């Protein structure tokens, strides 16, 4: 029995076979893949998969992983200035979770034949993106609350359906992530509630944070369906289960009553219940802002990337020391313990 079998990129060609034989083999593999997706079965790392499916997953999972670790920065900004020890401990745990989410996702991406270093390289050189929401600054403590409630809330809305993604390792990573996210959202909501019910100045601070984070949170779902280049194919492959606009609507419907309970308003004069649709109508989103931030012109793009690169470079000596130590002790640390 060997670990090398059909299904890896290298072994799908038929060496020495005619073009027709290769094409027939390819078609057979494709039929198996299509049937598995149609039957709602999961695709696993060593299964044959279309190259475009693999590339699309790498792109999406990498962007997701990058978002988790870049997303640590805006909140970490407030750890030293959290208003109480309780809030500080919570915030540290939350930021640590985001690092963990990044690692689950990098692992999932690696099962597709890419390496972590390659992905980090692409992040550092700007060739792969992260969610543009993290290019906005956290100006006050209330922003930590607003991020937990709205940004993690939007992320959860996006991620829950990804637990049923057709690619097994991504789906499993999402199950772990979603379990951890609900604390993120609740701690943010609780922090905002405390401010909203506090002094007049605290209430105003909470309102200001919500005013600034609301629209960027709606943009997290990506461009409208009509302009989304990847959505249709990703849905056909069951990587995505719902369109951007569907998920955005779901999030708005959930958030409006939550805002009411907070005693805060959402900065949209067009926001109202539509009896006929059974959903909240909301105003137009400023997509020029979205594309502008995505292109690198947001308030914090440069800061986020340079801080990431710096952290990576500053950690080089730790990686080197650990590797040197491992090499020196080769053979003495190889046993796992039950």
């Amino acid at each position, binding site marked *: *029995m*060997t*670990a090398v*079998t*059909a*299904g890896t990129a290298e072994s799908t060609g038929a060496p020495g076979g005619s073009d027709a034989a290769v094409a027939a083999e390819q078609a057979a593999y494709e039929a198996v893949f299509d049937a598995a997706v149609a039957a709602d079965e999961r695709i*696993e*790392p*060593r*299964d044959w998969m279309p190259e475009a499916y693999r590339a699309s997953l790498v792109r999406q999972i990498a962007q997701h992983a990058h978002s988790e670790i870049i997303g640590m920065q805006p909140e970490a900004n407030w750890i030293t200035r959290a208003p109480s020890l309780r809030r500080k401990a919570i915030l540290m*745990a939350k930021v*640590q*979770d985001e690092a*963990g989410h990044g*690692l*689950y996702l990098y*692992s999932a991406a*690696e099962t597709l034949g890419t*390496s*972590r*270093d390659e992905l980090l390289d692409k992040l550092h050189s700007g060739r792969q993106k992260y969610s543009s929401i993290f290019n906005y600054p956290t100006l006050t403590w209330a922003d930590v609350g607003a991020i937990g409630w709205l940004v993690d809330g939007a992320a959860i809305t996006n991620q829950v359906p990804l637990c049923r993604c057709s690619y097994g390792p991504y789906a*499993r*990573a999402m199950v*772990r992530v979603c379990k*951890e996210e609900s604390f993120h959202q609740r701690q943010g909501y609780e922090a905002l509630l405390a401010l909203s019910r506090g002094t007049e100045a605290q209430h105003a601070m909470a309102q200001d944070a919500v005013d600034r984070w609301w629209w960027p949170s709606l943009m997290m779902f990506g461009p409208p369906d009509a302009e989304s280049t990847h959505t249709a194919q990703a849905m056909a492959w069951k990587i995505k289960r719902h369109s951007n606009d569907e998920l955005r609507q779901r999030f708005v419907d959930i958030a409006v009553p939550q805002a009411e309970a907070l005693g805060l308003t959402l900065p949209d004069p067009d926001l109202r219940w539509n009896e006929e649709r059974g959903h909240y109508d909301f105003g137009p989103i400023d997509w020029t802002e979205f594309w502008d931030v995505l292109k690198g012109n947001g308030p914090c793009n440069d800061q986020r990337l340079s801080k990431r690169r710096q952290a990576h470079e500053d950690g*080089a000596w730790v*990686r*080197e020391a*650990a*590797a040197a*130590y*491992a090499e020196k*002790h080769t053979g003495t*640390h*190889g*046993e*796992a*313990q*039950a």
Partner: protein
Amino acid sequence: MTSDGWPLWEVFVRSRRGLSHTHAGSLHAPDAEMALRNARDLYTRRSEGVSIWVVPSTAITASSPDEKDPFFEPAADKPYRHPTFYEIPEGVKHL
């Protein structure tokens, strides 16, 4: 030296005594000891485990990914290995 030089480890976690270790995920680490520490931080932040195994990914030998692999065929035609294969008169108890 980058983390590429760090091998990949598969992590197995026993969630509580009496249960088997189950695969939780993977991670990179320079050696087994660091792999265990990283696994604790990554996979048991909420007391999900009472014991962790880390195994170098390269040490795992796997069967073919195809579920219809002939490798598993010997099991497919032996329904008599299942208790439901047998007909027992109604009313017979504890069988």
